[in-house]
């Protein structure tokens, strides 16, 4: 209602309510941001952040924690694996999702409704963790990047969003191309996909962020330490307190540096979080668009 009033140029809303509402929104924003602020300051602190009371600024400002984390080869390998799976996973997922959605967006495609129902059913029912694990093992995908790319290649939700979008493209667009003798594959890539740019961006970002954040599949499908993604490497260091942490601490001590384990952990978490923190303000609008497209059909 507030927005409607603003658009109409009306004013005179209850000032007490507005002040309270702004205060609430500010409180919400602080609550959302402060844990991240704490993480950042903690990662830049040489000493334990909270030593000697509450502080909003780093204690004994230093980049040592980041130095240690970046020199840790496990983090570099993890980053490589994450980037690899994100690149392969996102491009393949886009390709297969759009190729599948196009035929099923066309009314004349044989068995269209049955196929669509079969796909949508998987939104509500799945085999679950164990049968999926057995399948991946039997396909000999363990310890390959395909174990991280193939099982979630296409989701029913993304499929429905793309198909709905394609159904809104006027059929006149492809008819002229058909007259010129173009086949359906050429039409999809030359005519339909260029019109689909906004939805391609949405799905691509969606899948890419999913891959960036994924860790569980790496934990169960990848047995070699050298094949694990950065989120899992981070998990080992921070949550399981693996030898990686003690090693980094010991190395720092040998070099005569004073660091707190909290700072080192915070820097490790930050290193995996920074990319997300940096890109999210720019990509969130595409995400929002996707949610709204999904909600059109329900």
């Amino acid at each position: 209602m507030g927005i409607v009033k603003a658009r109409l140029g009306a004013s005179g809303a209850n000032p007490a309510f507005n002040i309270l509402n702004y205060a609430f929104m500010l409180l919400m924003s602080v609550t959302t941001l402060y844990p991240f602020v704490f993480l950042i300051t903690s990662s830049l602190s040489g000493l334990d952040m909270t030593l000697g009371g509450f502080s909003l600024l780093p204690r004994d400002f230093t980049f040592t924690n980041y130095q240690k984390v970046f020199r840790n080869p496990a983090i570099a390998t993890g980053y490589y694996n994450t980037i690899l799976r994100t690149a392969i996973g996102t491009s393949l997922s886009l390709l297969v999702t759009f190729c599948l959605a196009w035929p099923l967006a066309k009314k004349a495609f044989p068995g269209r409704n049955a196929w669509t129902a079969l796909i949508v059913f998987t939104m509500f029912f799945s085999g679950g963790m164990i049968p999926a694990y057995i399948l991946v093992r039997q396909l000999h995908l363990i310890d390959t990047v395909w174990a991280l790319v193939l099982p979630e290649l296409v989701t029913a939700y993304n499929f429905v969003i793309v198909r709905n979008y394609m159904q809104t493209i006027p059929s006149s667009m492809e008819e002229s191309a058909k007259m010129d003798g173009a086949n359906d594959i050429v039409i999809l890539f030359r005519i339909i996909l260029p019109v689909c740019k906004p939805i391609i961006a949405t799905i691509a970002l969606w899948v890419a962020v999913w891959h960036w954040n994924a860790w569980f599949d790496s934990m169960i499908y990848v047995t070699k330490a050298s094949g694990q993604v950065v989120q899992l490497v981070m998990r080992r260091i921070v949550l399981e307190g693996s030898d990686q942490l003690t090693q980094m601490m010991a190395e720092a001590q040998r070099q005569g540096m004073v660091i707190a384990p909290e700072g080192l952990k915070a820097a490790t978490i930050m290193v995996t979080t920074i990319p997300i923190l940096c890109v999210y303000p720019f990509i969130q609008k595409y995400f929002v668009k996707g949610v709204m497209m999904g909600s059109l059909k329900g």
Partner: protein
Amino acid sequence: MATNTDAAGGASDSIATAPRKQPLSRRLWDNRYLILLFLPGMLYFLVFRYVPIYGLVIAFKDYNFSEGIMGSPWIGLEVFKEMFASHGFWEVFKNTLVISALQFVTGFPAPIIFALLLNEIASLRPKKIFQTISYLPHFVSWVILAGLFTQFLSPSTGPINILIQAMGGKPIYFMADPQWFIFILVVTEVWKSIGWGSIIYLAAISGIDAEMYEAASIDGAGRWVKMKSITLPSLAPVITIMLILAIGKLVNDNFDQIFNMYNPAVYRVSDVMSTYLYRKGLEDMEYSLATAVGLFKNVIAFAMVIGANALAKRINDSGIW
């Protein structure tokens, strides 16, 4: 390997022979390029979505790896009997329901209230900023957040406890005290999803006809009356759909959150169906039992979505299908 290709091949054969109103061979030939585009995706769904569904049969078998899904002997409902007789299963079932119910009663209304309040912010710029900030946690995975909150809530070095001590209180072991841990699970879930969850409601609010508000204003309706008699009724269909989906999640606990945040001190209250299933299946290699737990969970979730949908249709004709 053989079982997978068999299942996938069998399924595609059955549609090729399905009856059609027009000559099928003609229709298939006309659509040959479309079929080519369609095949990889459909093959994916059959292999990676339907073969695991077929794999659920091992809940009724004494599964072992060497004999495979097909070769393992049938044992009927033995696994389910064992599961229902075990104390551990009922405990995790209860924990799942308790945590999910608490997350539902707080997490479901929170984004609606947030959307309504955000909508009352008249100037566009602050509104946009509040909104963008609220989305942030959605983009951060539970692995990261678990690491973050473990530090943030630490009794010795976390800022929350430093504040509590500064005010003369005793440090609280948020992550190790069973009651506090459940509280943390609920609060962090709301914290993560409130902004993102509000998008769909904000979209619905922006679709409401502005003339309705104008007319109400002319009639002298205040903010509260307009919210109650225009905004909320207009949101009813969206709320219904979200409610149906949320009901299905009541038994589908949040594995990522709990698995990354729990620890032996709080297993008693926070070991849920998915974490139990993971430990039984992938750590203890009790594949059949773990699959049975998963099947039980999926069937209940599916039945609840169907039931909620049917109910919603009967009440206000707004189901998801």
